[in-house]
Structure formats: structure tokens, C-alpha cells
């Protein structure tokens, strides 16, 4: 089991035990939002110091767009099936 999964499980357990302490959970929520900034800054430093990443940016960007948009298309298309079969009927009207 990786350290990542341990951190996640410890977090869920802690959150569940503290579920009545909404104030504290709000602080944790804010801390999580703030942690993203140093994370992305450090990631930027890593990428910026790697010349190969910057040189290959157009190629990486094109790949990224292809992967991401095909993922979106696949998810949305499959969701149409689930929606028609399981969700639309219960709304009581066809649209």
C-alpha cells in the first residue's frame, strides 16, 4: 500500500471522527485549498528547470488535448445510456 493511500484513509477516518466539528472541518477545507498553491508552484519550478519539457510544450499540449477531450466524449456518451435507462424515467416526464 502506498503512502498516498495511507494518507487518504487517515484523512477519511479523521474527518469521519470529527464530522460534528464543522468549524474544524472548515479550517481543513481552507487548508486544502491553500495547499494547492505551493504544490503547483513547486511543480512549476520542477518543469521550468527541465528544458526538455519547455521545448516539447506544443507536442505535449496536443497530446493532452486529445486525451482529455476523448475522455470527456467517452464519459458523456456513456452517461447518455445510464441517463435514459435509469434516471429519466423517474422524473415523470420525457424531455
Amino acid at each position, binding site marked *: 500500500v502506498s503512502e498516498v493511500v495511507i494518507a487518504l484513509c487517515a484523512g477519511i477516518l479523521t474527518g469521519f471522527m470529527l464530522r460534528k466539528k464543522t468549524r474544524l472541518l472548515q479550517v481543513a477545507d481552507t487548508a486544502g*485549498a491553500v495547499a494547492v498553491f505551493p504544490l*503547483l*508552484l513547486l511543480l512549476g519550478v520542477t518543469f521550468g528547470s527541465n528544458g526538455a519539457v519547455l521545448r516539447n*510544450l506544443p507536442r505535449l499540449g496536443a497530446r493532452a488535448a486529445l486525451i482529455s477531450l476523448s475522455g*470527456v466524449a467517452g*464519459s458523456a456518451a456513456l452517461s447518455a445510456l445510464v441517463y435514459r435507462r435509469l434516471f429519466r424515467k423517474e422524473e415523470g416526464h420525457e424531455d
Partner: protein
Amino acid sequence: MKTNLLIVLCFAAGVCLGRFTLLASFVPLSGSVTFVLLALIFLVGAGVGGNVGVWHVLKEMRLRILLVPLTVVVGTTAGVAAAAVFLRGIPFFQSLAIGWGFGYYSLSSVIVTRTWGDMLGMTALIANLIREIATLLLAPFLLRLFGKLAPIAAGGATSMDTTLPVISRVSGKEYAVISVFSGMVLTLLVPVLLPLLSKLR
């Protein structure tokens, strides 16, 4: 959207620092990234674990609601597999690692960078940012084409927060609960699925 812009600016500042200064050779980067990453994952878990609403939703909607995040996982995998034809030079599992970020660009790009290196990490960052932006822009179009679950499915992990306002406006308020639930499950899946993929490389 404002927060997003700030995050992108923060990242751009980092790139400049890395490019034009020698910071990268002085700061023990991988160590500090690991620490912040684990702290972030812990906090994400705490947010979900402490959310009483999640358990209520699961009880009320029963197992049917689990189909929504499952649809996103299967649909994304199918989409990436279809795109693999055009992705020569990059192994399928690595493309899948990028797709399985489900729009959660901060966490997924760090995990991908740690496992597969800078090039793939950068690709993961761009790809998952695009997923979020595409959902924000295409939500009305996806709704007309594929129905009310489509904007939620497109949003992936972001459907619990950043893309939620657009989703609830387009699909209707009654779909906001499903949207938050699906986004939460996917958010939790990212740090679980990516290490699994790394075993396959």
C-alpha cells in the same frame, strides 16, 4: 474560475523561477512536493469523511448513484483507448494515467510527475485543466446531445466544486446532489487508481 487563474499564475511563477533561477538545484524539490502532496490528500480525505451528506445521499439514492462515477471511469477509459490509435509513442497505461486524473489537475499532475517523470506530468496538468475548462464551456452542448448526466460525467472530479455551478444551472438543481457525490467519489479515486496504474507502467 478566479481561484483557477490564481493557481495557473502560481504555476507560471514557478516555471519562471525554475527556468531563470537556480532555485531547482538548491531546494530539495521532490521531498517538499511529497510532503505537501500527502498533506493535501489527507485534507481531501478529511473533507469527504466529515461530510455527513455523502452517506445520506448514498442511502437515499441507493446504489444507482454509484453508477454515475463508474460511468465516468469506464467512459474515460473507453475514450482514451479510442484515442490511443493517434497516440503513438506513448504507452496506453500512461495515457490512461493522464485520463484518470478526471480533471483533478493539481493532485493528478503531481502523482504522474512522481511516477512517470516531468514530461508526462506536464501533459497530465494540461489535459486535466482542459477537462475542467471544456466542461465549463461545453456543458449546455453536452446536455442537448447526451442528456442531464452528461455535464456531470464530463466534469469528472471537478463536478463537486469548480464546475458545480454550471452543472446545476444546465442540468437543474435536482442534479446538484448527484454532481457533488460523483465528484467526491472520483476525487477519492484519483490517489487510489494512479498508484495502481503505476504498477503496470
